[in-house]
């Protein structure tokens, strides 16, 4: 418990609230803009209108973009989660210096600026003839998602008491049972968090898609990007509102899970 005398003063707290407001208020302002009754970005003048939300349903581009993003995100997340979890488990089991080197290499896609990867993957996909295909985008996104899974699963494993597994072995549990009954339940929240981050990284990914997709694959970020650069019509505000709500729900789910884990 923090002492009264060391609590931040009212002035400091007020300033911090101003910063938080700077972060949050702009996100809230898109809501009225998405409900405007005019055809350009503006506040509603005479009344609220759902026209721009309806336009999302009837427009030929938005729904397929949403669907493609979901499919690409889910498959890329599946690959990243399976490969990443196995890798984190393997490094944990092997231990030693080689494991820390492997982990250091595996997180590179999360720290090297994605534009660098975009150049490399663009050239390779030309050679492999998978430019502008589901395979190409899914594979690239899976690479970019793996680091998150490895980081979160490794973190979950670092708090794991190895003696639990030894005790299970002593009681006669085989390797598969030990993995299923002891290790997996403990790292499950880490796998879930990693998968969530991997999905979000694919869901939001723009720069690589700008390079390796053009006509057949138009993900949601690509569609928003085109919209911002072409005509800035209020249907983008409607998409923005939906995405902000979606992010808030995911955040809430993640926080609730974390609390349950701690409590």
């Amino acid at each position: 418990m923090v002492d009264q005398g060391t609590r931040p003063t009212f002035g400091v707290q007020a300033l911090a609230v101003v910063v938080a407001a700077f972060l949050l208020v702009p996100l809230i302002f898109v809501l009225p803009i998405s409900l405007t009754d005019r055809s350009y970005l503006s506040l509603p003048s005479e009344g609220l209108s759902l026209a721009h939300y309806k336009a999302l349903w009837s427009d030929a581009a938005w729904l397929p973009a949403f669907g493609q993003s979901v499919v690409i995100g889910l498959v890329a997340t599946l690959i990243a989660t399976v490969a990443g979890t196995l890798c984190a488990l393997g490094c944990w089991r092997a231990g030693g210096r080689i494991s820390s080197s492997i982990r250091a290499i595996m997180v590179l896609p999360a720290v090297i600026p994605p534009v660098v990867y975009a150049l490399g993957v663009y050239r390779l996909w030309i050679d492999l003839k998978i430019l502008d295909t589901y395979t190409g985008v899914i594979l690239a996104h899976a690479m970019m998602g793996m680091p998150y899974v490895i980081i979160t699963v490794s973190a979950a494993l670092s708090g794991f008491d190895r003696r639990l597994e030894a005790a299970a072995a002593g009681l006669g549990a085989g390797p598969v049972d030990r993995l299923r009954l002891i290790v997996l339940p403990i790292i499950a929240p880490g796998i879930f968090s990693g998968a969530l981050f991997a999905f979000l990284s694919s869901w939001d990914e723009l720069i690589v898609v700008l390079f390796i997709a053009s006509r057949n694959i138009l993900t949601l970020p690509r569609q928003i990007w085109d919209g911002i650069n072409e005509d800035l019509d209020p249907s983008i505000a409607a998409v923005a509102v939906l995405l902000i709500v979606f992010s808030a729900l995911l955040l809430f789910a993640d926080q609730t899970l974390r609390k349950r884990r701690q409590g």
Partner: protein
Amino acid sequence: MGETKSAAARTGLLLAAPALLLLLLFYLFPVGRVLSLSVLEPTPGLGNYEMLFTSSGIQAVLSATARICLITTAIAVPLGYLMAYVITIGSRSMRTFMLYGVLLPLWVSALVRSFVWVTLLQRRGLVNQFLQSLGVIDQPLPLIWNEFGVIVGMVHYMIPYAVLPLLASMAAIDIRLVEAARGMGASRGRAFREVFLPLSMPGIAASAILVLILTFGFYTTPAILGGGRTMMIAQYITTQILVLPRWGVGAMLATVLVVVTIALLLLLSRFFDPSHSRTER
């Protein structure tokens, strides 16, 4: 555990193999190959790197990039510090509110957040309309498609990232030290300056380096809010490849990005380990 140590290592490496193989084939190989173009295209040699010293266009991009990085860091880290400080030692309700203030923007994509700033800052945007209706200005201010707009968007994007390492470092500070200083008669300000602030220094360094790394190679926000007039390095590289295409120059600048990022990462690893930061002073 029933297994010998080397058997455990072998199983372990076997489990890690698929991910490593994927990374090698579909990440490290293509990235390495494209970076090598910087000394191969259009002719073998260091000609592309000479452009760092001779091309005024590239120098303008690099200096704009450096300027935006430094200004963004200089604004985002102190503001992030304020938030982390209140989250760490503020009351419970404050803490929850501020924590969501940090986390929610973190979960909203850069694209959406940049778009939000377009709606606020453009010529007929809410900020200009508001200022005009108050009579503060006659003509709309140019708030976007320039460096100002990029910096507003970047600061907004980076504050949450600035907060995270600060929170980790502040959580490791024994708050009783501050209370002891207060108990011995130090003023609030003095207890902060002489006890809390020095203890949080590794967090400040980590936060500043993290924001620098992320800002340096960032594409989306500068591309949208800079409107092509203020160009940072990632966007310049994209133009080199997708518009011109000049692979040699693009690959050279990509190499610069990678080298600077790795140098900053090595610097970061000196501050990031919490056990290290506690013994720092």
